[in-house]
């Protein structure tokens, strides 16, 4: 079913926070890029696990442990199917940051090459781990530039990705600009040069259909909390052969097949990479979130968010004196960064908060991008399935009010 305002309002009923009040006013949540709210279905799945199935996995010979193990393994299977991966190609991690760090510490064992290619629009999560690797291994970072229209310069990418490139890691959807990058094209460039390709899908997986076979990436990292799932969940997809080759990042219990005093033999995928007791309840919550999103339909979610973006772009245009940092509806997910002339984004966010309108203000963990844009930060509204054009109307009213306050100042 296509999403419109009435369907979005119906979906919103599933989210307890969005039906609650703070200081007597409803919450208008437009910070979905930071994290999304959780539907009752996910909250219930987590409680139900603790109430009826809780036991450690892969250990107990009793029924409870077997049930927990099955639920956990089913969560893996759901996640793999969700992104069209083969069985055992998804490792559960605590999120995108964890997934990328794991790669930054283990990939050097199976790659050679001197360069790491990123883009100028990376989140610090897909930048700092590579900076550290570059320092440890005397490698060099290169950045695919951004054009004036806030899209990647693919011609430059072709020059930057060469036989000397070991790793290409790019953000799929920019958390600041909304830009949806052509991951397939960049991964093909990496493949042509025998480089490993990695996609930071933190902002794309919650909002659009991801098919790892179509993208043909080697690895793909994501966070559960940005897609209706619990915090502390997420994953790393990797092609089977690469995951077999890659050494484990963490070692300990659960990830071994056999251990002697001197040596250990690694367990099968994905356990090899999931040392210790994993976030079992979290994985079950994540899998419920996936079911929830699939029932709505990823295509429907993407289409609705683009409609909201279109509306927001038009409305901000009407207000005037607003600069937007967005490549336009065709090339962007439902994320809109903007600045109002003469008003700092922090001041705007504080004044909007008086009406429980939640937006993000600042550098959005993308300081090099801010430097490139020549600004200290932006205000950012980011949408999800449960947002409506009325939420955007409330934002616009709040922006107009802020402009009035700044024009006059409230009297002493």
């Amino acid at each position, binding site marked *: 079913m296509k999403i419109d305002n009435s369907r979005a309002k119906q979906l919103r009923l599933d989210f307890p926070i969005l039906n609650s009040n703070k200081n007597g006013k409803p919450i208008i949540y437009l910070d979905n890029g930071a994290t999304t709210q959780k539907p009752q279905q996910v909250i219930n799945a987590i409680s139900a696990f603790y109430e009826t199935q809780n036991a450690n996995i892969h250990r107990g010979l009793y029924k409870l442990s077997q049930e927990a193990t099955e639920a956990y393994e089913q969560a893996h299977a759901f996640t793999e199917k969700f992104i069209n991966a083969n069985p055992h190609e998804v490792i559960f991690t605590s999120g995108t940051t964890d997934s990328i760090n794991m790669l930054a510490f283990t990939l050097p064992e199976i790659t050679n090459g001197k360069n790491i290619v990123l883009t100028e629009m990376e989140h610090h999560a897909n930048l700092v781990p590579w900076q550290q690797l570059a320092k440890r291994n005397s490698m060099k970072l290169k950045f695919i530039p951004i054009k004036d229209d806030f899209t990647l310069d693919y011609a430059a990418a072709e020059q930057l990705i060469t036989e000397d490139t070991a790793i290409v890691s790019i953000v799929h959807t920019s958390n600041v600009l909304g830009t949806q990058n052509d991951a397939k094209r960049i991964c093909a460039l990496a493949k042509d040069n025998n480089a490993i390709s990695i996609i930071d899908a933190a902002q794309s997986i919650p909002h659009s259909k991801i098919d790892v076979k179509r993208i043909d990436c080697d690895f793909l990292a994501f966070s559960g909390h940005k897609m209706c799932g619990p915090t502390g969940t997420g994953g790393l997809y990797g092609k089977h052969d690469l995951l077999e080759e890659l050494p484990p990042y963490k070692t300990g219990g659960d990830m071994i097949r056999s251990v002697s005093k001197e040596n250990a033999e690694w367990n099968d995928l994905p356990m090899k990479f999931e040392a210790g007791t994993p976030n079992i309840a979290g994985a079950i919550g994540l899998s419920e979130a996936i079911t929830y999103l699939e029932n709505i339909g990823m295509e429907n979610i993407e289409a609705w968010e683009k409609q909201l973006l279109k509306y927001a772009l038009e409305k901000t245009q009407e207000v005037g004196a607003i600069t937007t940092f967005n490549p336009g509806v065709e090339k962007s997910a439902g994320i809109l960064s903007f600045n109002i002339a003469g008003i700092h984004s922090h001041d705007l966010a504080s004044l909007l908060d008086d009406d429980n309108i939640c937006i993000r203000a600042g550098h959005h963990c993308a300081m090099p991008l801010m430097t490139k844009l020549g600004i*200290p930060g932006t205000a950012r509204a980011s949408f999800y399935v449960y947002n409506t054009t009325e939420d955007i109307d409330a934002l616009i009213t709040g922006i107009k009010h802020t402009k009035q306050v700044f024009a006059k100042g409230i009297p*002493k």
Partner: protein
Amino acid sequence: MSNIEETLSEEMYREHILDLYKSPHNFGDLEGATHKHKGFNPLCGDEITVQLIIKDGKVQAVKFKGQGCAINIASSSLLTDEIKGKTTQAIMEMKTPDVLDLMKIPISSVRFKCALLGLETLQKAVQGSEPDGNA
């Protein structure tokens, strides 16, 4: 349950604060500065640089520059007004309530960092720490 105060943020945006934001005092570069520091608010990426001329343990002149929100710019304006002629010791003894007294507005807890960046940067400059980066 929650102890997040219910004071409206709007209470912060008094005329005197916005006047200082639009026309800050002591803003710009200081020629012949003896002390200088560049401070960052890692939460939002704001930065300000404070420059001083200190002679015989007293502030002869002070200027600040940078990009910041209204709260940051207004507090830095008021603070730089306040410390002219003061001893470095008096400056080092200044604390959060001194800044809040100068501002005469209720600051919500999430904005404390903004209000205090000026004082933090000033105290580091007085202590003589090297400017961070390309100040």
